[in-house]
């Protein structure tokens, strides 16, 4: 699936985004769990805590989050919980999501629901 890197002014790749129409939160948690260096994955409980913050986990010991901007976005933002602190490079974590190939029906649903057929260029 397509992922979108986010870099700071210095060009350091500190976070990335994924299109949430392609996978469930459970699947995202499973992908994170399969990655070396990820631990303590906590999924948000129903009706508890901010509804935009879906997953908390540690990546190489640093607190990370999977977050939906405004609680209403086509993408999940995955990066450090506190951008001001030192944090590891996330390129290899992003690769885990890059390699994920959603099931055909999920891709078909995404294609229809996200109106990909109207603007295929926006997929990139």
């Amino acid at each position, binding site marked *: 699936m397509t992922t979108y890197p*986010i*870099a*700071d*002014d210095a060009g350091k790749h*500190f*976070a990335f985004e994924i299109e*949430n*129409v392609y996978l469930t939160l459970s699947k995202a948690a499973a992908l994170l769990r399969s990655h070396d260096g990820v631990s303590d994955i906590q999924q948000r409980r129903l009706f508890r805590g*901010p*509804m*935009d*913050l879906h997953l908390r986990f540690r990546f190489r010991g640093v607190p990370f989050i999977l*977050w*939906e*901007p*405004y*609680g*209403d*976005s*086509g*993408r999940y*933002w995955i*990066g450090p919980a506190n*951008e*001001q602190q030192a944090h590891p490079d996330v390129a290899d974590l992003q690769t885990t999501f890059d390699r994920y190939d959603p099931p055909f029906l999920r891709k078909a649903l995404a294609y*229809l*629901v*996200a*109106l990909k057929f109207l603007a295929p260029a926006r997929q990139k």
Partner: protein
Amino acid sequence: MRFTGKERDAETGLDYFDARYYASRTGRFTTADPGHVGRNIFDPQSWNGYAYALNNPQRFVDPTGLYPCSIRLSGDDAAAAGVSDGGSVIGECVDAEDPLKWAQRFFLDRLFGNLLTLQVADFSAGLGDALLLGAGPRFRRELDIDVVDQCSGAYSAGAWSSFAFGAARVGHAGLAKGASILASSGVQASAFRQGLKTAARLGVAASWRQPNLAKYGTDEALRAAADRTNPVVNAWGAGTAAAGAAGVLGCGQ
């Protein structure tokens, strides 16, 4: 073959109803309801274990001797009986051997017939049918619920409410996109979107973290983030609006 197509015992003159015999001369079963499985605490007519079909044979039949059930008419049969096609009175017995459906129908009869008004039921159905993207009538058919009048004013009001809800969602997405284009910077677009989100969620989301330059690195990336809304919810909103409009206009179809 005699009463409701059941077999009559020539020697006793009783009609065989699987679980027990029926005496057509008295209009009663000869034994009580086995285990009293047809009893409903809300309906005194069902408390008599010997009564046939709640003492209302025009509306109900009891093919097994256990549970009364409603019957429907369609086509020529409906016309002959003076009810609308598919009307709730006559034809095939729909829940003869299904205790769950029997209990469910009685519960709904009591709930919508007595405790709440039919207008509330119609309004809820109009609202719910559109929120379910038009699947509500199908569910009701599957569950044998026929208390909803899709041509009533209450049903239309419910459908209009769903239309308004869906249209508001689509409008919300359009506002977010429009503001991100017109804003002078990504920071401004994000601030507007944050306010829009807070208003849409009636203030609940005011404390949620706001996308900023620290999270997106560049102003353009922040502007793009403010533009995006959840496409699944957008599609559902558009579908709800369309189904709501169809519900308002679809009486009799």
